[in-house]
């Protein structure tokens, strides 16, 4: 199940250049490149002639030339040259996708181009805001995108999957959790009061006594999870909104389905303390990356289970409230998108 009328992160801005980049997004082959003036371009990665991926070709000025018989396409996806043939049929055109560069990422619109308003791009400003230190990265995941969404909405798994980095047992057993929901949004707020800080927090925050720790997970469809996490020494007032003497970080996640069973996982980590310290930024990033590799192993194994027995019965537990609310939103949005598509088709 995919939602189409959304902006998705397709690539990091730095990996798209004058060499064509091939990437499958929502099951569709897409080729990315930049024109000579640096503008990003995305279109269908398949020659209209004999289906060779255009990403195997090369750029000739601002035109992408097919590797097979030399057909050339301009930035709109229109074929503008067919070797040995003067007249080019008007249907010699590949599908072009709207793209926007923002927050160090290249965003793509996979739905109706008429609806592609860049104002709808989900806010990830922490990744390139001077008030924050940040680093982002990419993971390829052999699992359905919703398994990753589930993972980020239930952080009790930190106590078990990530006990050497960002988790400890206090998370699962000593937390108070509140889930709030809106038509297209779920927020899971978890407070862990007067408990030991987990290993990563001790390393980067230097805590020597118990902390009040928060995790505020904001889910926006289809698969954006922005986590406000941090801790302050116990009793200094963070639960009342006064964050002093501790650390605040943003863990930022944008998941883009590649296929029903594989995902592009773009993520970043930002911190609001000592923001110019690149060594610190790297140290925090590496701690979180270690945890994320542990997650990827879980996703991959879950997908293998689901491949063997699709749609098995599953048990829901108390910690699943956020997960379930998000899945309901996604199912409803999918139904609405499909209904709108069928209505258009019937016209």
């Amino acid at each position, binding site marked *: 199940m995919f939602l189409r009328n959304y902006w998705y992160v397709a690539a990091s801005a730095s990996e798209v250049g004058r060499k064509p980049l091939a990437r499958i997004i929502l099951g569709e082959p897409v080729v990315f490149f930049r024109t000579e003036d640096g503008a990003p371009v995305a279109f269908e990665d398949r020659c209209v002639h004999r289906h060779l991926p255009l990403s195997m070709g090369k750029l000739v000025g601002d035109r992408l030339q097919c590797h097979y018989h030399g057909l050339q396409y301009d930035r709109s996806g229109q074929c503008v040259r067919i070797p040995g043939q003067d007249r080019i049929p008007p249907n010699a055109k590949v599908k072009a996708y709207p793209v926007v560069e923002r927050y160090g990422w290249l965003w793509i619109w996979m739905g109706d181009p008429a609806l592609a308003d860049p104002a709808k791009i989900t806010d990830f400003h922490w990744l390139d805001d001077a008030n924050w230190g940040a680093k982002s990265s990419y993971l390829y995941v052999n699992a359905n995108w919703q398994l990753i969404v589930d993972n980020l909405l239930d952080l009790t798994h930190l106590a078990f999957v990530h006990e050497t980095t960002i988790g400890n047992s206090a998370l699962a057993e000593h937390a108070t*959790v*509140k*889930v709030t*929901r809106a038509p297209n949004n779920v927020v899971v707020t978890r407070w862990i009061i007067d408990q030991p800080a987990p290993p990563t927090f001790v390393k980067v925050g230097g805590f020597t006594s118990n902390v009040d720790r928060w995790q505020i997970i904001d889910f926006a469809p289809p698969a954006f999870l922005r986590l406000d996490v941090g801790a302050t020494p116990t009793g200094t007032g963070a639960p009342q909104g006064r964050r002093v003497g501790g650390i605040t970080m943003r863990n930022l996640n944008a998941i883009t389905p590649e296929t029903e069973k594989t995902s592009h996982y773009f993520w970043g980590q930002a911190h609001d303390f000592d923001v110019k310290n690149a060594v610190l930024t790297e140290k925090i990033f590496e701690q979180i990356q270690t945890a994320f590799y542990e997650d990827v192993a879980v996703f991959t194994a879950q997908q293998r289970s689901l491949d063997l027995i699709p749609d098995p019965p599953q048990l*829901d537990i*108390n910690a*699943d*409230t956020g997960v*379930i*609310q998000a899945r309901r939103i996604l199912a409803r949005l999918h139904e609405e998108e499909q209904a709108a598509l069928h209505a258009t088709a019937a016209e």
Partner: protein
Amino acid sequence: MADTEEWRRVAALSDIPADAGFPVTLGGTPIALYRVEDAVHAIDDVCPHAFALLSQGFVEGGTVECPLHQACFEIATGRCLSGPATVDLRSYAVKVDGGDVYVRAP
């Protein structure tokens, strides 16, 4: 008189949020307190369907919706309004005295 001994103080009135349940136990039984307008109500906290805690559910217009599978219950009576749960919750008598909330064991 025996009747007075059955009332147990379970919470301060100020503990109970306006928009959510507040979990307490009464003789080992998990129950949840809710405010509906000016009244305080106490009903079982465990959903009879799959044992979710209803105090973590969603309170809307005098009802609480199970956080997991959307069964709905009337807060004032414990009555099951919609499935997948099929039985009502037990409802407990409540009295508020001087900022303290008391519940009577059935």
